[in-house]
């Protein structure tokens, strides 16, 4: 079966868009788009990815070329989808699936609700908080409070992500909520210190994906993406710190 130029571009563009939306490294997105379109029979592929958009130019055997641009505004983190698109491109390169199947699978990946719903992610977030509190040699009630504070952070994330829009608002509000929980605990039981609660609570807010991708983009030589992702990590940390500091300042006063 002959695959048309438009179909190649739409398949490659969709794959790139999914990977960028869910937090993949720049070089991985570019390589995946190259592999997918070449497996469909493209002669030459040029791909360019920055953290806010995907560009793709495909030239077919007849020498015609077509460019597509996909703008990505909302970005989340879902490493499961990245692994799935990666697997799909491997299969396409090995000729183990057809074009029509590949497109259907990609559309399914972009729409399916993978991973876990609100309650399990809240429990996971709480476990991060509680576990970190254990590492800080906290006593039992501090661990419980850290668990609850980290759960609250996840719930705030859920609410804020529905409202969409303002960047770094969730990190700031999360930091404030955690510091407030710590201060409240200290107020109710002056024997317990708010330290472990706040340290545990801010742990789910660490920008893990931004840090990792910034490093991996530097190694791959994608300077533009690595700088902006590094800045994202710094700004996220600053937002969390500001949220905590503001509440602590008021509490001390």
């Amino acid at each position, binding site marked *: 079966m002959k695959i048309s130029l438009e179909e190649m571009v739409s398949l490659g563009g969709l794959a790139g868009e999914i990977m960028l939306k869910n937090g993949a490294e720049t070089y991985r997105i570019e390589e995946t788009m190259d592999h997918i379109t070449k497996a469909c029979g493209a002669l030459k592929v040029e791909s360019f990815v920055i953290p806010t958009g995907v560009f793709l130019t495909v030239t077919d055997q007849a020498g015609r070329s077509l460019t597509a641009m996909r703008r990505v505004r909302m970005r989340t983190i879902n490493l499961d989808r990245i692994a799935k698109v990666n697997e799909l491109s491997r299969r396409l390169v090995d000729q183990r699936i057809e074009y029509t199947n590949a497109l259907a699978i990609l559309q399914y990946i972009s729409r399916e609700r993978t991973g876990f719903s609100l309650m399990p992610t809240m429990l996971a977030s709480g476990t991060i908080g509680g576990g970190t509190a254990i590492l800080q040699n906290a006593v039992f009630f501090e661990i419980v409070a850290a668990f609850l504070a980290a759960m609250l952070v996840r719930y705030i994330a859920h609410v804020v992500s529905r409202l969409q829009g303002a960047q770094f608002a969730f990190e700031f509000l999360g930091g404030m909520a955690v510091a407030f929980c710590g201060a409240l605990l200290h107020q109710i039981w002056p024997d317990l210190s708010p330290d472990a609660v706040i340290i545990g609570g801010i742990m789910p807010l*660490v920008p893990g994906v931004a*840090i990792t991708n910034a490093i991996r983009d530097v190694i791959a030589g994608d300077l533009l993406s690595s700088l902006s992702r590094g800045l994202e990590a710094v700004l996220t940390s600053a937002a969390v710190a500001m949220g905590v500091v503001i509440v602590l300042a008021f509490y001390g006063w």
Partner: protein
Amino acid sequence: MKIAAVFLVSASIGILYRIPRTLVVYASLVGVAAWLIMYYTMIAGATVVLADFLASIAVGIMAEILARSLKKPATIFIIPGFIPLVPGSDAYTTMLYMVKGQYVSGVSMGMQTMLTASAIAFGIFVSSAMFKLVINYKTESSWQNVDKS
């Protein structure tokens, strides 16, 4: 007790970032191994910065090996691996000093926090870059063999 806590923290990070369910255990074991390296190098007398650097080098190496053998992106194993190393308590202590107006202690603690964070980032950088060099060296030498034959 603490090892179990680290395992749970890493596994929860994996769930939060939605890594494929079958890989959660591998990613958590990377986190536990990294934390143990950090813990014992600190008991042996190393500074926090050096201990975190060594541990994050280990995270990078383990993640790249797992990624190659399971054919999955290395990011999946790096993130749960290095989160237990993040200097959360240092960052908090810095904030506390700054709020109380003890700027000298705050700046020195902040410097330590930043150095520790940079050490983690640089450790992952070093191990991933070295791994890439080794892989490229292997493919290059296999090309030379093709040329000879």
